[in-house]
């Protein structure tokens, strides 16, 4: 698979995106409404596996990262998009079933609502836990730990 295969795939699917090569590897940035068509096109075009899916709190919004891999040639691609706080995380489980668990985790730990997921329950924590991975949620301080 040529190194720019994803460009062709995404252009054919008419997905607006920017693509650049960073230290990390090839990173494709797009709008979060375009994630499903983009991943659908990439999956059909030979990116076999969703290696990982996770979310990061950038301080202004939540950044989703889809780490894809094509086994022919071990091509790696990072697809990134941004979602507002308390925004909507659209599931891609029917394209990559591997996303079933990480999506639930990302939604609960960063406080997003999960749509299109067959089992949108919490995965790791109990009901009522605040979104722990947000930067605004502080961990326990030294005082609290010492005197509890």
């Amino acid at each position: 698979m040529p190194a720019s295969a994803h460009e062709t795939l995404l252009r054919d699917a008419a997905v607006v995106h920017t693509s650049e090569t960073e230290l990390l590897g090839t990173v494709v940035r797009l709008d979060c409404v375009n994630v499903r068509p983009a991943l659908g096109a990439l999956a059909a075009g030979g990116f076999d596996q969703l290696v990982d899916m996770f979310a990061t709190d950038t301080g202004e919004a939540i950044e989703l990262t889809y780490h894809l891999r094509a086994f022919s040639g071990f091509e790696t691609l990072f697809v990134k998009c941004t979602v507002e706080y308390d925004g909507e995380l659209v599931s891609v489980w029917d394209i990559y079933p591997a996303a079933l668990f990480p999506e639930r985790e990302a939604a609960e730990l960063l406080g997003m609502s999960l749509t299109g997921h067959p089992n949108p329950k919490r995965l790791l924590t109990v009901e009522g836990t605040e979104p722990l991975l947000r930067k605004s949620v502080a961990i326990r301080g030294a005082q609290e730990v010492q005197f509890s």
Partner: protein
Amino acid sequence: MSDVRLDVSRQPGPRWVLPKGLRRVPEGLDELATEHLILNMGPQHPSTHGVLHVLLELDGEEVQAAEASVGYLHRGIEKLAESRKYHQVGTLLDRADYLAGLHTETAFALAVERLAGIEVPRKADWIRSLTMELCRLASHVVWAGTFGMDAGAMAPFLYIMRDREALLDILEAITGGRMMFNYVRPGGVFADLPAGVDTKIRAFLDVFDTYLEETDALLGGNEIFQARIKNVGVISRDTAMAFGLAGGTMRASGIDFDVRRDMPYAAYTELDFDVPVASGGDCWDRYVVRMEEMRQSVRMIRQLVDGMPEGDFTAKVPKVLRPPAGEMYAAVESPRGELGIHLVSDGGPTPYRMRLRSPAYYNLAITDEAIAGSLIADAVVIIGSLDIVLGEIDR
């Protein structure tokens, strides 16, 4: 049994709708009013390898649907790493995959080194590979023992515990700890190999060869055991790919991928080893693949001990690391498969975000696919064959 096998291409089948089961009455049998039994397996169950909780929907003894519920060990390793300096994160990561802490440490060290552009001395690479392979053996023997225990065989478990103690002695001599090593640091390793450890390793390997064959004979040579695991929990190649499986579980389904060979790190480019691959995708194949991996590890350890280079064991690294802002992904082949660290740095002394791509997490997601349609006894064996460690699943 046969309808369990997934004909999964890219098109999602109805089987993938979780939790499609957990419905009370099977369709078409309303007038009989038979009920399915919902059984909670775990969190306290001898065969869930920790605190996994599996909801089983049973029709008699046959499992109709299964839903894995995790989070009983969620302790915020990713969150806490954001408040730890780069040298301190290893402490947390050891406790993520507690059967093979060195692999997680190495993955993190690799990510930091690649981000900060630190050149690692050749000897450090070799020591890393050596300790990691020892650690892989220590993890795989536990898997073999608990897998046997899931099938009801007690003896192999106790036999492998003996081997594991010997392995832990060696690891303790090298790293100073039995399980929580904190040995691999960004830039190299914490300490040089102690004098005389190579004779110790060689002496162990000579015995371990026989012990390994003994364990293999006790488990794989036993007809009852074979009957229990052959054609059970079949995962097709496509399903394995779609669910992003990793490691031995993936290779047993016919995907020829090994991070050590295909995305080399540490000293693996200089080593001679084979990657065992099977095609059936059932529990037996997973057993065979992992057993063969152990033999390959033994082979690699021999090469590593023989060819251990001279030199520094660590590069010069500042006390407080401040890698430049950016992102980096580094993966190692842990005993459970591709274990990756996705590191986001903002140039500060602590990571901005650390994501642990844990292989067992993805392997566990297959539970429902693999279990549905088999018996309770199979469910136990299938979960055992996936080789899960709850520490890295829940993080």
